[in-house]
């Protein structure tokens, strides 16, 4: 069961306790805002160390599902940067794993299953971020 959490609650729960978390929350907020500016976001899932108790998460990990007809061609540079891995990491400290719904629900579920385990194979939370 994936918890659905508004961005404001994400800030309260995960974005205030340390300067590192405050820094990363602002990056997360910027990326989520950019994603919504496309008008074609379906789901934004937050996983990794940020939605945990870790005091010093390294970065922010997002799995983003866009509408089936979404294309990156023609996006303005500030939006395109969110969909290009290196640019997004450098600019926002956010790893964006994105795909469109056209891949199919089975493969989206598979990706969520992979992201629900950390690299030590322990269960880790995934939350869906909404505005």
């Amino acid at each position: 069961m994936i918890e659905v959490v508004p961005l404001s609650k994400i800030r309260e729960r995960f974005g205030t306790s340390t300067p590192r978390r405050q820094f990363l929350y602002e990056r997360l907020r910027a990326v989520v805002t950019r994603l919504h500016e496309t008008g074609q976001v379906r789901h934004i899932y937050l996983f990794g160390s940020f939605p945990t108790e870790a005091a010093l998460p390294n970065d922010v990990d997002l799995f983003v599902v866009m509408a089936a007809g979404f294309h990156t061609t023609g996006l303005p540079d500030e939006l395109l940067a969110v969909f290009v891995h290196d640019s997004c990491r450098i600019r926002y400290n956010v790893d964006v794993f994105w795909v469109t719904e056209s891949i199919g629900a089975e493969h989206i579920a598979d990706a969520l299953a992979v992201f629900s385990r950390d690299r030590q194979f322990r269960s880790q939370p995934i939350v869906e971020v909404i505005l």
Partner: protein
Amino acid sequence: MIANDDELHQAETAVQKLWRFLEQARQTHARTDYERLAAPYLLQIQDRQQEILAYLSTRPEVLRA
């Protein structure tokens, strides 16, 4: 780091899922979009495969020592 055979099998399953995910994404996305979206998944596969190879390159008694 993979510590035992159970974790090895979990890592193999994760790689297979990511592999199949990319195979399907390659079929269902335009070329430019696919090239842009694939990078982080490929890095995940590469990291996990390196962990698998590191585990398989040593004998069990060496890992336990």
